[in-house]
Each structure stands twice: as structure tokens, then as C-alpha cells.
């Protein structure tokens, strides 16, 4: 069978991209190897580990459970877009750094994207609510405690009135 190729147009971190992709190319592979945005990591390709989590129109999804063609016309956000123009670590990233919320760092981008969406909708979560939101991202290094502390702190920082 000849590869089934499709033209797609999508925005990632505010930038527009036009590409031609094979139908079966996973969105995770497209981001990493076509757009060279390798910050989104692949851990399982069956939707369990959460390492590949990105935001699709603002909502966290598993990029390994979507085909690139399905992203046509959508707005994606990945870890590379978190620092913004200033290149400063954003509050979540800064909090992870201060609380040692990462060790090998492989699951970290997926967690940052999940938490970005979660904290936006839940600016004042309890620890239990935060752990529930985090339970869809597996980490094998940290035991989660420092991630929880980092995210609670980030939430607190973001709630504080701007100076």
C-alpha cells in the first residue's frame, strides 16, 4: 500500500506549521522528529505513562494516542512554549527547580503540561486533588513528593497578587 499522505496545518506554541504527513504518524513522533520539538517525550505509546502529554486547544492529551493528521487546524502547546519570550522559567518550572521536583527529567515535560492546565482551572487545590491530577503521569525517580510540593508552591505563587 502506498503511504497515505495528508497536508496539515497547525499551530504549536503560537507558531504556524504546514507539513505533509503519513496518516499513521503519531502526533508524538510528528512533534519530535518533524518539528524537532523533542521536549515532549515518549514512554509507552499506549497512553499510560503520560510522558507525551501536551495541550490540545488548552486541554491535556496524550500525544501518543493521536495521529498528526488529527491535529490539523488545532492549537498545540508543548513544554518548549512554557518559557515564553523572556526565556525565564515560568512559575511551575521555577517551583520544580526549587523543590527538586525532577531527577532524570524524562517525565517532567508531561507533568508540566498536565499541571499547567490543571492549575489554571484549579488555582487552589488541596494536596489530594493535586495528587489525583498528577496520577495520570508516572514518575519512577522522585516518589512524587517533591513534585507535589513544587506544584502546591507554584499554585500559591500564582495566586499571590502581582507586586
Amino acid at each position, binding site marked *: *500500500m502506498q*503511504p*497515505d499522505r*495528508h497536508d496539515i496545518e497547525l499551530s504549536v506554541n503560537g507558531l504556524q506549521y504546514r507539513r505533509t504527513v*503519513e*496518516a*499513521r504518524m*503519531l502526533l508524538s*513522533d510528528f512533534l519530535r522528529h518533524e518539528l524537532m520539538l523533542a521536549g515532549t517525550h515518549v514512554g509507552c*505509546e*499506549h*497512553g499510560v505513562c*503520560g510522558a507525551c*502529554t501536551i495541550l*490540545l486547544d488548552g*486541554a*491535556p*492529551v*496524550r500525544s*501518543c*494516542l*493521536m*495521529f498528526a*493528521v*488529527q491535529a*490539523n487546524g488545532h492549537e498545540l502547546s508543548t513544554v518548549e512554549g512554557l518559557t515564553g519570550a523572556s526565556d525565564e522559567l515560568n512559575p511551575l518550572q521555577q517551583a520544580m527547580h526549587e523543590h527538586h521536583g525532577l531527577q532524570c527529567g524524562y517525565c517532567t515535560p508531561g507533568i508540566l503540561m*498536565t499541571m499547567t492546565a*490543571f492549575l489554571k482551572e484549579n488555582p487552589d487545590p488541596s494536596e489530594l486533588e493535586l495528587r*489525583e*491530577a498528577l*496520577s*495520570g503521569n508516572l514518575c519512577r525517580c522522585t516518589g512524587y513528593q517533591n513534585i507535589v510540593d513544587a506544584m502546591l508552591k507554584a499554585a500559591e505563587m500564582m495566586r499571590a497578587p502581582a507586586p
Partner: protein
Amino acid sequence: MKPAPFKYIAASSLVEALSLKAEYGEEAHFLAGGQSLIPAMNFRLARPAVLIDINGLTELASIDCSNAQAIRLGALTRYRAMERDPGFPRACALFADALPHIAHPQIRNRGTIGGNLCHADPASELPAVAVAMQARMRVKSLSGERELAADDFFVAPLRTDLKAEEMLVEIVLPTAGARSGASFMEVARRRGDFALAGVAAIVSLDEERRCSGIRLAFCGVGETPVDASHSASSLVGQRCTDRTIAAAAADVRRAIAPSGNIHASAGYQRHVAEILTRRAIAMACNRIAHAA
């Protein structure tokens, strides 16, 4: 784990989707949320030659709670939409209870009720909820439309009664009467995992607060959702007390025949099914008391 090659077609209308399905038959799968289909494809357990993407058929995504007799859900409605709908969780306790048990938010942002029901995983929560509620499945093809009872929809593990050219388009959920309460509970190893056993219970009371009807359906303990309503019939005509509920739960335990799996022995599944029956019926009754 990359999927095998396929031809991808994004359907722009329901008619187009149904025509394509009629044309390709078993060789084609509908792609809705993809949260069950795509993992299967990545494992190469599923290798459809054609994927008909129906995510553009937004008319199939709808939640209608306006009718007191029945809630109507479009098959393409995402779990996320059901969770966030202002009226739906309140109108349907079984879904409100069951939805947080389905995987994780990232999955629920994409997955649809239609996709879940058509995937027909025996351990999946919503098929059991559908059976408990005696849902009706509206199914369409190019040649027409039919409606089937949830009981008849689930045929075997991962198999429904859908014919090769058919698409599930709507789920009709009859509501229980005024003096009714419902509860869904499950035991799983981790939150979001498939249930080792799960039960959807609906209890109705008469004016004297005696049980006038009970609906009970399990996930995880059979090849399809197990309708155990009849086994709990000892409750009908009785007040719901710890004793009567326990007796009904013991009857239910004897009536089901789980086969066990790598996470739970058959004995454990039966044991937990009884416990969940007891707890869910009690919770359902409790909710009637508070609603009254």
C-alpha cells in the same frame, strides 16, 4: 510500537461516514476519541485498513437533559463534556460516580461515550452503567436506523451487535422515578485502572419506603456487563436495611461467575462484588433519603 499503515479519511458529514463504512465494511474503523483504538493499533492488535475520522461530526456530540423521562447523549460526547456539563452529573448519579474512575483526565479529554461502549471492554464502567439504566442504543447505517437495548448491544468481550456498516449515534438513558437513588462503585488496583469488579445500582422505593425495584449491573466479572438485577430481587417489597441488603448481596454473589485475571482471583472478584453490592445499594438508598 508504531501502527500498521492505513488509509485515513476525515468524514465531513454523517452520510459520508456511513457511506464509507458501508463501502469498506469490516476493513474500516471509526476513529472517535481513539483512546482505546489507538493503543490497540500501536500494539498492532488492531490493524484497520481504513480509519474514518468522525471527530468533525460535532452534531453527534450532545447532552440533552431537558426531557424528564430520558437523558439523550450523542455518541461523540467526550467524557470531559459530560463531567463539565452544568446539568448532566446532577441528573445522572451513575455517570457522575463512574466518570472519575475512567482512566485519567488526559484520556477523558479525548475519549467519547460512543467509543467506550463500542469498544465493549468487559472491565469498562460505562457498559455496566448502560445496562443498569436499561439504556437504548440508537444505531444508524446508510440503509436506516435501529434501536437496541443495552443488554442486547454487548455480545462478547470487545464485541457489540453492531453490523459492519453501522454506527452508534445516540444513547438514550431512561431516568428512574422520583423515589430512586443510584450509585456506582468499583474496586481497582489504582485509580483509573480497569475495575476488578464494579457495580451500578439503582434502587426505587414505594410510598412506604419499601423497595419497588432494583437494577444491578456489574463490570469486570463477566464477558460482557452482567445484569444481576434479578438476583437481588429478594429486596423487592422489603425495607432496605443492613440485613435485607446483605441478604440480597449474598444472593448476587452466588449468581455471578467471574473467571479471575492476573490482578484478582475469581474468589476475590466474587467477594468484592458482594461487598460493592452492599455498599452501592446502601449508598443508593441513602441518596433517596436525602433527596426526599
